[in-house]
């Protein structure tokens, strides 16, 4: 829906119609209109595209930086490991959203900076996971064998280490996509993320809360959109965890296969 929305919808999500402010849901405007008379349905659908791209971009960014850091820490060990993990520990000792808020204030409030900030805030999680898996693999025989055969460090990392880190990474990526969407909504709500008139869900809510008393649909609908999309990523993450982790297989939805 979010992917194909703009192809189907001809309403401009930023088109204002001051004569039709804060209308309740009707057949003309399925979700009603907001404080500037913009069609809420169009805005929520476009917001979905924004939220999906926030999720994808920040998670990719977190992976792109976090995975190499984790590999380097585990593979080289010693001081490299100590220093990198110290930094990761320090980053993990902030609540994620606090870290994202501080980073986005440094970069300046905008949608793209919000993506970067969330990606940076999530990075230590990936570094931790990869380091853990890589450490346990480093001394195993197939890695030793590859080394004995004369494989280069880069080849061992790419061909042997990374594939083994994939299952936990895929699960975390799915869960953290949901988390990234929520974080972006937080930043938008605090006025530090996407700026109006962008139809980002959190930004819409930060404006809409002023009309909570008179037109609650302006708050209820975008919020419900956030809950539904995050819920689906979390369900996906749970399902993937069950499918990919043999120890957990069958504990979540016994006898019903993977959802």
């Amino acid at each position, binding site marked *: 829906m979010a992917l194909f929305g703009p192809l189907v919808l001809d309403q401009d999500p930023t088109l204002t119609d001051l004569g039709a402010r804060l209308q309740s849901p009707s057949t003309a405007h399925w979700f009603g209109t907001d404080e500037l008379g913009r069609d809420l349905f169009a805005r929520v659908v476009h917001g979905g595209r924004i939220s999906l791209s926030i999720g994808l971009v920040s998670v990719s960014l977190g992976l792109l930086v976090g995975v190499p850091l984790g590999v380097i820490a585990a593979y080289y060990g010693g001081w490299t490991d100590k220093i990198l993990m110290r930094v990761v520990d320090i980053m993990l000792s902030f609540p994620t959203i606090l870290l994202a808020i501080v980073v986005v204030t440094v970069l300046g409030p905008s949608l793209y900076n919000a993506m970067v900030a969330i990606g940076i805030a999530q990075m230590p999680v990936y570094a931790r996971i990869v380091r853990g898996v890589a450490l346990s693999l480093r001394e195993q025989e197939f890695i030793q064998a590859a080394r004995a055969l004369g494989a280069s460090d880069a080849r061992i990392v790419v061909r042997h280490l990374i594939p083994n880190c994939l299952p936990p990474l895929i699960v975390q990526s799915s869960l953290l996509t949901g988390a990234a969407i929520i974080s972006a*909504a937080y930043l938008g709500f605090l006025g530090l993320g996407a700026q109006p008139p962008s139809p980002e869900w959190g930004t819409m809510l930060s404006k809409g809360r002023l009309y909570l008393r008179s037109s609650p649909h302006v708050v209820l609908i975008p919020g419900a959109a*956030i809950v539904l999309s995050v819920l689906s990523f979390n369900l996906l993450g749970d399902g993937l965890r069950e499918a990919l982790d043999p120890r957990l297989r069958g504990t979540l939805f016994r006898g019903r296969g993977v959802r």
Partner: protein
Amino acid sequence: MQRFLIERLALLLPNLLGISIIVFLLVRAIPGDPAVLMVGDLGTPEDIAYFRQQWGLDRPLVEQYLRFLSHVGRGDFGRSILTQSPVIHELVPRIQATVLLAATAIVIAITLGVLAGIAAALRPYSLVDHGTMILALTGVSTPIFWTGLVLMLIFSVRLQWLPPGGYGTPWHLLMPAFTLALFAAGVIARQARSSLLEVLGSDYVRTAKAKGLAERQVVSRHALRNALIPVITVAGLQFGQMLGGSILTETVFSWPGIGSYLIQGLLGRDYPAVQAAVLVGATWFALVNLLVDLLYGFIDPRIHYA
């Protein structure tokens, strides 16, 4: 035990020092000069220069950092650029407000979460189980501020039972605490269910059942105690993260805590205030983690900190 405590506290110090350096640098990397903001548009370059000199903002970074540290050492955290008074005077009541909020929230979250987890684990794969787990997952998937707005809509706007914001009476505390609790309650419920299920399937629980103990006895006396250990870890982590959640909750309900102080400081480029607030947050997180480790010892007699 004592040695463990001292070791952990000793480890805390370099960690906090690292955090203070990072925060110090990050805050100064924020675009916007507090001198320009405070002096205003009408200020001459001389005014701005005078302001910078007054606040030591013209000194080298290393000197500014050391001065900040000495203020932390003296316990006053420097003076706030916005209000001119020592940061500590504003910090203490705000810490109290946030601790009150977060403590109430974690109590609510643990109560709801553990009860839901037990209900789900006792009848696995039943309607009750699926229902509570979907509720828990929804709790984890809901943005905090939206929970707050929806509660506000129901209880303040429609029913008019509770004040929409502010601070002072238990009535003011109710909605923000529930708002902050919901996410943690979901996480705790999921953990409680899975660890209780695991324990219920273990040999010693079967033995207890085999010797004829009532189900209630087995669960409350034998299973729950062991199942709670991972729950405590998760609850502790959530309590640490609550400082992040309280930023949103406090913004929605205009709760005068550390979270809203931080946002206010960030927007006003109030370096000392932001530094103090973040440092308080990181210390909070570290202390909670330490407390959780200590709690293990009380719950699980096998764990000894020699």
